[in-house]
């Protein structure tokens, strides 16, 4: 049931929003956090399990070092301090998707803490940077997944029975928690979305997660509270769970602002509770109240040793961090002379790294961008494969561009050469030779082909002579066809006009 809301602008004029974001990232490690089971998504239920991740009596956890490394790299990329010594802790609660009825997590000793992330948004005064303070990033394990069969809602209440899939249980998670984000004013929804987007870009850049929100490898909980003025003390917050798209993050913040405002303005208090987000209707509904202050009875996990990452290791990891995506993007936009829109196209195509590689190898940025976002994206898309899976190297593109500038290949022939590369026919020069790909530069065969084309369509010469130069297209086309695309179209046009005695 939808609750009362207040118009957003009115709400913002009366209250100051305070945001808090908790993001869970599933790491892309090959194996789970505490055992050797596979983490591949989509396997049949309960096929990627063992005594450890099923929590069978007697089983013990062992630590995935890559998981720890990823956590440290994430911490560093978020400008956090890295703990010199920290432990896992048990978070005790009973739930059927939790094999041990405790989650191995971190409590008061997170591996990374005290960081920040700068995000940029468009404001009425132009682009502006907000600094999102980060409280901590800690390691934990994912739970299994319940599905409730029967009943109307797909939730546990009213279901006929429930099934549990433990394939996901034990997959490494990093939970990244912000401090209260203040000072956003009316831009709270935009800041929330920009933060999650920036975080996603960083995680993708680090290569630690596939960050697919729709598959749940990046999950976001939105905390929101309102206060009367920025000087007032923090209000009671609501925690909206599983807001799993960037658009929904923005909408959920906006909705909660309007809902809280209506309640507060009506003299009601805010219930501290978790809420469910409904993507379809764009509203949240009440989940379970948090007022009973859930007691997880945390204590240090006795089955795992403390983690003490050496400073040398941390510095090594710091030195090998990729450039911050936002910084890199700004640099490339400037270097390549792109518009923000062009850059968005590049990023959305997933070709940024491939283009950068080509440019580093000496390919003109515009050309590299053209090939990767154009022809090569089309081919990858047709084949249902990732761009990275195409066997096209920066060297291929470099040679192709050299041949085009020299006039010995045109666009069409260049595409054929690339097809040859993808078909595994060798390097560009070998393919050009084997396939006989070369622009015909001798006028003799072109003139012969023009004569043939004119003979086949006697009326066209008169039409062109009468001034309808566009009609030349059909002749050029016929010549191109006759020469199997190897003619230089511009030269054919020149020769045709010369022959007919017209000038452009």
């Amino acid at each position: 049931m939808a609750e009362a809301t207040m118009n957003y602008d009115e709400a913002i004029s009366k209250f100051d929003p305070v945001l808090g974001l908790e993001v869970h990232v599933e790491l892309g490690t090959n194996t789970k956090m505490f055992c050797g089971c596979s983490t591949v998504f989509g396997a049949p239920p309960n096929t990627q399990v063992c005594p450890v991740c099923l929590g069978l009596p007697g089983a013990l956890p062992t630590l995935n070092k890559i998981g720890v490394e990823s956590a440290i790299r994430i911490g560093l990329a978020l400008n956090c301090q890295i703990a010199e010594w920290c432990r896992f802790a048990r978070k005790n609660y009973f739930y059927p998707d939790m094999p041990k009825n405790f989650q191995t997590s971190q409590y008061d000793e997170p591996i990374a803490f005290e960081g920040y992330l700068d995000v940029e948004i468009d404001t009425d005064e132009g682009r502006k940077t907000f600094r999102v303070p980060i409280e901590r990033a800690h390691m934990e394990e994912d739970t299994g997944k319940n599905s409730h069969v029967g009943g109307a809602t797909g939730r546990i209440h009213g279901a006929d029975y429930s099934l549990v899939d433990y394939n996901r249980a034990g997959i490494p998670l990093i939970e990244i928690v912000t401090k209260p984000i203040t000072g956003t004013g009316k831009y709270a929804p935009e800041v929330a979305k920009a933060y999650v987007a920036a975080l996603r870009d960083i995680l993708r850049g680090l290569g630690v997660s596939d960050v697919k929100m729709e598959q749940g490898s990046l999950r976001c909980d939105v905390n929101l509270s309102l206060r009367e003025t920025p000087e007032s003390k923090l209000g009671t917050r609501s925690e909206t769970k599983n807001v799993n798209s960037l658009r929904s993050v923005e909408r959920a913040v906006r909705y909660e602002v309007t809902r809280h405002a209506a309640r507060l303005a009506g003299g009601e208090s805010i219930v501290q509770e978790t809420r469910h987000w409904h993507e379809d209707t764009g509203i949240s509904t009440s989940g379970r109240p948090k007022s009973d202050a859930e007691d997880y009875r945390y204590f240090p996990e006795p089955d795992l040793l403390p983690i003490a990452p050496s400073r040398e290791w941390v510095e090594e990891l710091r030195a090998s961090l990729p450039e911050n995506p936002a910084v890199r993007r700004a640099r490339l936009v400037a270097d390549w002379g792109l518009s923000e829109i062009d850059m968005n196209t590049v990023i959305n195509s997933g070709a940024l790294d491939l283009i950068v590689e080509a440019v580093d190898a000496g390919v003109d940025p515009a050309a590299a961008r053209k090939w990767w976002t154009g022809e090569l994206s089309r081919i990858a898309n047709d084949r249902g494969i990732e761009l990275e899976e195409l066997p096209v190297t920066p060297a291929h593109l470099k040679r192709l561009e050299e041949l085009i500038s020299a006039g010995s290949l045109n666009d069409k022939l260049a595409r054929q050469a690339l097809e040859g590369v993808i078909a595994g026919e060798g390097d560009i020069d070998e393919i050009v030779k084997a396939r006989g790909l070369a622009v015909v530069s001798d006028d003799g065969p072109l003139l012969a082909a023009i004569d043939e084309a004119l003979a086949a369509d006697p009326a066209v010469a008169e039409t062109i002579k009468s001034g309808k130069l566009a009609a030349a297209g059909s002749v050029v086309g016929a010549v191109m066809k006759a020469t199997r695309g190897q003619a230089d179209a511009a030269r054919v046009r020149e020769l045709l006009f010369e022959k007919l005695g017209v000038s452009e």
Partner: protein
Amino acid sequence: MSDLIRKDASELAGLVSSGEVSAVEVAQAHLDRIAAVDGAVHAFLHVDTKGALASAAAVDAKVKAGDKLSVLAGVPLGLKDILATNGLPTTCGSKVLDGWIPPYDATVVTKLREAGVVILGKTNMDEFAMGSSTEHSAFGPTHNPWDLERIPGGSGGGSSACVSSFEAPLAIGTDTGGSIRQPAAVTGSVGVKPTYGGVSRYGIVALASSLDQAGPCARNVLDTALLHSVIAGHDPMDSTSINAPVPDVIAAAKRADIKGMKVGIVKELGGEGYQAGVRSRFEESVALIESLGAEVVDVSCPSFPAALAAYYLILPSEASSNLAKFDGIRFGNRVGDDGTKSVEQVMSETRASGFGSEVIRRIILGTYALSAGYYDAYYGQAQKVRTLIKQDFDAAFAKVDVLISPTAPTTAFKIGEKLDDPLAMYLNDVATIPVNMAGLPGMSLPIGLAPEDNLPVGLQIIAPAMADDRLYNVGAAIERELLAKWGGPILGMAPELAGA
């Protein structure tokens, strides 16, 4: 009854490897003994006749083929029912696990199988190893072979009883606060709790993860050392397992020379509250140790009186979390699932009816101690006591090579005597608990019978971490003198069991 059952493990291993006796004959002799006396003793919860004979036959095949054998190949053993055994029931003495068959072996079990040790079956225990008498087993108590009306110690009473009743020459126990040593003491057998991390915990159902340690039980020091050497060693599956060479316990058991050693008597572990016969046998041992050329000094460990209280906060806290998984959802007994109840109700009914009163008592204690607002006062404070206990030991071992005390304050008490008095029960472990709190190795060695009740008394020997070999050296030196004095093993003085 075959005389094979009275032989030491080392002797049996020699007979089997030389081909003089087949491993199948040895296994059969012990299975016959179990059939004859275990109705009265109740050391076993599950006897695996078929599996035992099959693994014995496999050893015999190796003997025939001339393959190299381990030091204990073909020797039968009783396994505490807390170690996961692939294909064999593992109940932890609890109804909540009745019928559960693990799909995997504990690392200790894997090592035993690889060594050709013949697992006769699973031995009785206090439910989830909570107790000092084996009376808390959901499947009925085990009886002390010295007097069937008395307890065999606990929690590993099945393991100590099967060894002292000649049902098996060897057994595996686990020791969280004394569950190997106290049963050894009250049954006249030898038991060792190795250094924490010395033996893998993988596949051992956890009671208190930071205290639990599996170890060997046998009728003499050398056999205990042989079994220790088979089960010890680093295991990558257990993060708390120590990655270091296993101390050479076998060589130490053969050395048996304590001349020039410094032995400390822990002042706080003895005296008032200890039975007169326990004290007199202990004092005799001290004199014996001195006569062997060791120097004996008094050592004070002032934090030890707080150990029991701290232990009963740490253990229940960890146990309350470790035992949360027993909810009937994924394995074991499920109670109340009639299709009308919520999952929370089914979990709750499963736990309420599956756990016995002592388990429930400790889960409630631990849940309380970990609760928000109480954590610092209870669990946090107990951890501080633990640190103090470690410091006491560190200070003591700066002065002496090993420490000694009586293993338990009394000899075996009567079944039912302390069942309604948990505190009296807990006090049985007053001398063994500090050793677990500090992760140190400890041994219980039989040193005679208390004159007032003719029941066995144990001497506890404690060594620094990873110096387990010292236990065996000291134990073997004392044992050699006592065997000479008694004219044979102490178990020769135990009454014959009916049916044998």
